């Protein structure tokens, strides 16, 4: 029970938008943690701290300083450069030295880093960020508003080789970031966006703040603002970092971080078991090898990552939504989560609104397996005995096994699925319509990594003009709702539109999303305080040895 005086104190914090969230909290519709996350989103950055919300691991700050944390990562696929980075191993390396305006912490939401506070104007088209004063790059230069603006201008410039361009499409264009004064930066957006702080946070992993004169040679000195700085780097072998004694925040506990690149995950887990590593990425196969072993811990964070099944709405047999719904109804989501994902996932409801997004409308009924209803719908559409169809997908993660499960579920309603499992790069092809099995296949499964907001899923995979719209879904009602969602400024308004979108997508079923996975890492029991995000950032500054 929350006392009335507490609620009044909360109300005093900010304006109407905030008060809607406070009302929801008072009414029991919004958890305290979500209220705090929301406070951060609208820029009430001091609020979380005033509520005694520590950083995860902050309690461990009293842990013993010293020691070397030894990390195993995959092999980076190309030169490490924050601007063009795409692979998990490189993100793991970059997160030792590079920082963002905001960190999207999996537990506590948006945490101010190089930005101290932020706010939007009434239209949510202009966002202003106050920078943390006195922050220094590892080369001794002070971070200025000019560096911040240059960092974003680089990312939205097609000529820079930035891999973040698709994330900023329709949100931020060249010339949108502006210096207001030495410690203030403003962003004029392409359209209203209430979730913009996520776009300058670690969610867009390229958005590391780099010096304005950065020339693309990151591997030379790994010059960032983070708690560690470069000691040595050997391409294809690994890197080591030492504590940055000039760091603006709490100094890192470990003396050193030693990273080794591995081509083979088996070798990685063996090195961990032999005591030669403290932290490695996790896969379901590796989890089996340390299961029940007290020397290791499996740490997980819930993510919005999912494997998206697309049904091409413009091609037989999926032109009729009843057929699409029928296939979706054959799937037993709980069985998939328990069996395939070893319960390290939550059930999805065929829309990108993962339950971890505060704007998701959780009152929309959950779709469950119903073979009788599936058969009825097939009969209604004139194919009572089912139909044959090919499912094309990639050989990656658990996807081939998931494809076999879908094949078996579909059989129950008479739908005869043939599998066509391709190597990952062949599946993506040139990633453009007309020359990509991913975007051209009748029925396919694609892996999507974690995002802090549903925006990019909603825009890129479902909007009629979306670049990743493999379902070829073209629904004016949906596109209109998407505009409303972008304009919705408070949580209540966002959730109202989200509910409509979720209902529409359940009815139309251009996608099947059975689960949202957790993201895990395996660590030695000897270390405490390992933190990470669901998109491969590895935060080791609070690690201590027990």
């Amino acid at each position, binding site marked *: 029970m929350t006392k009335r005086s507490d609620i009044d104190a909360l109300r005093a914090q900010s304006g109407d938008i905030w008060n809607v969230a406070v009302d929801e909290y008072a009414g029991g519709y919004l958890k305290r943690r979500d209220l705090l996350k929301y406070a951060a989103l609208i820029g009430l950055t001091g609020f979380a701290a005033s509520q005694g919300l520590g950083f995860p691991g902050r309690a461990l700050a009293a842990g013993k300083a010293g020691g070397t944390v030894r990390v195993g990562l995959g*092999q980076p*696929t*190309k*030169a490490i*450069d924050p601007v*063009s980075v*795409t692979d998990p191993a490189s993100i793991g390396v970059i997160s030792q030295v590079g920082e963002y305006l905001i960190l999207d912490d999996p537990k506590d939401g948006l945490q101010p880093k190089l930005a101290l506070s932020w706010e939007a104007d009434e239209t949510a088209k202009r966002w202003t960020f106050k920078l943390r004063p006195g922050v220094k790059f590892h080369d001794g230069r002070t971070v200025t508003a000019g560096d911040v603006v240059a960092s974003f201008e680089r990312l939205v410039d*097609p*000529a820079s*080789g*930035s*891999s973040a*361009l*698709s994330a900023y*499409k329709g949100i931020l264009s060249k010339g949108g970031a502006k210096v207001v004064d030495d410690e203030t930066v403003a962003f004029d957006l392409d359209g209203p966006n209430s979730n913009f702080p996520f776009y300058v946070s670690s969610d867009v992993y390229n958005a590391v703040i780099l010096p304005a004169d950065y020339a*693309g040679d990151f591997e030379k000195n790994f010059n960032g603002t983070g708690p560690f700085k470069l000691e*040595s780097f*050997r*391409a*294809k*072998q690994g890197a080591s970092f030492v504590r940055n004694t000039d760091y603006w925040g709490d100094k890192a506990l470990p003396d050193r971080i030693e990273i*080794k*690149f*591995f*081509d*083979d995950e*088996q*070798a990685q887990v*063996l*090195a961990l*078991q*032999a005591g*030669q590593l403290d932290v490695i990425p996790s896969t379901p196969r590796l989890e089996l090898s340390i299961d029940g072993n007290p020397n290791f811990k499996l740490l997980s964070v819930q993510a919005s990552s999912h494997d998206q099944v697309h049904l091409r709405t413009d091609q037989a047999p999926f032109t009729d939504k009843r057929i699409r719904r029928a296939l979706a109804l054959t799937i037993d989501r709980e069985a998939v989560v328990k069996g395939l994902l070893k319960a390290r996932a939550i059930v999805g409801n065929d829309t990108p609104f993962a339950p971890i997004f505060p704007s998701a409308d959780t009152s929309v009924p959950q779709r469950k397996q119903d073979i009788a209803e599936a058969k009825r719908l097939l009969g209604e559409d004139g194919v009572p005995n089912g139909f044959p169809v090919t499912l094309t997908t990639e050989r990656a993660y658990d996807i081939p096994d998931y494809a076999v499960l879908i094949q078996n579920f579909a059989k129950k309603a008479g739908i005869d699925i043939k599998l066509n499992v391709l190597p990952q*790069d*062949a599946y*993506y*092809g*040139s*990633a*453009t319509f007309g020359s990509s099995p*991913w975007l051209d296949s009748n029925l396919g499964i694609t892996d999507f990594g974690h995002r802090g907001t549903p925006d990019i899923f909603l825009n*890129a995979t479902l909007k009629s003009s979306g*670049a*990743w719209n493999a379902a070829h879904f073209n629904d004016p009602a949906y596109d209109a709702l998407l505009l409303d969602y972008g304009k919705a400024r408070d949580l209540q308004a966002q959730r109202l539109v989200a509910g409509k979108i979720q209902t529409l997508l359940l009815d139309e079923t251009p996608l099947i999303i059975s689960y949202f996975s957790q993201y895990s890492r395996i660590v030695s029991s000897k270390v405490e305080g390992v933190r990470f995000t669901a998109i491969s950032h590895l935060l080791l500054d609070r690690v201590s040895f027990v």
Partner: protein
Amino acid sequence: MAVVRHLTARAGSLLLTLWLVSILVFWAGQVLPGDVGRVMLGPFADAQAVAELNRRLGADQPILVQYWHWFSKAITGDFGDSLAMRAPVAPFVLESIRKSSALAGVILVLLVPLGVGAGVIAGLNAGRLVDRLIVLSGVSLAIVPDFVSGLLLLIVFGLWLSWFPINGVAPDGAGFWTNGYYLILPALPLVLNLAGYIARMTRAGVIEAMAADYTRTAVLKGLDRREVVVRHVLRNALTPTIAVLATQSGYLLGGLVVIEALFGIQGLGNLVLNAARGRDFPMLEAGVLVMAAIFVLSAAVGDLLQALLDPRQRRRVSS
């Protein structure tokens, strides 16, 4: 004079082979799905950014133009910059050859005494129990794939017994012996795999030499058995074995992709595999050409050794 002619012809055919291989690699690169810009920026990157990157890297030019750009530089010894690593190709390739050579060296140091020794013992005891045991264990070990034996060896000697490090890469500044020690475990799967084969080759040579007229003559001359074996049998019996070892070196330098990946050794096989995955053509071309050159040269060295060791062939080369 004949030897010079022979070597010139060999060198000419080597260059022709390399030129054809370079064309083949370029052509094969064109039929792979995706392009370098797409691979570098990932499937979710914006098409405009991908097109811009391809333009900057020259990957949007017609294939013949791209090939000519590459070729005209390559004949001057400039293999260009790696697209993925944004640095000159040559140091990467040289480093990978160094790593692969070190591994191949350790393999040969362990393999030759084991394979040849077992083969000689089996050949001298043909038909007896020891012979059968050697042949049978050789065949059994040869059918175990290297990734299986590699993993088993890692688990037993690296994890349980901790005799060897899990990783095949010695720390910076390690000396000759330390580097060798780090490579013993990665070498063992190949040693076990090839030992049976080398032993069978040696055994066959020994049996053939033991039955030959010159051996009988030597025995009748009253030479003791050890002298007969060392001076007459082994010299003749080892000729095919040496030729086989020479031709295997190509494979040992460029074909150990699985072992290199398992033990984290950035050798030539690994380099070529990753370059192909990343559509990194300058790196791929350089890696494959080096590999092709090693294969052709090691075959040539094998022929030459065989010619030098076998009097019948020696006459054929110099006539």
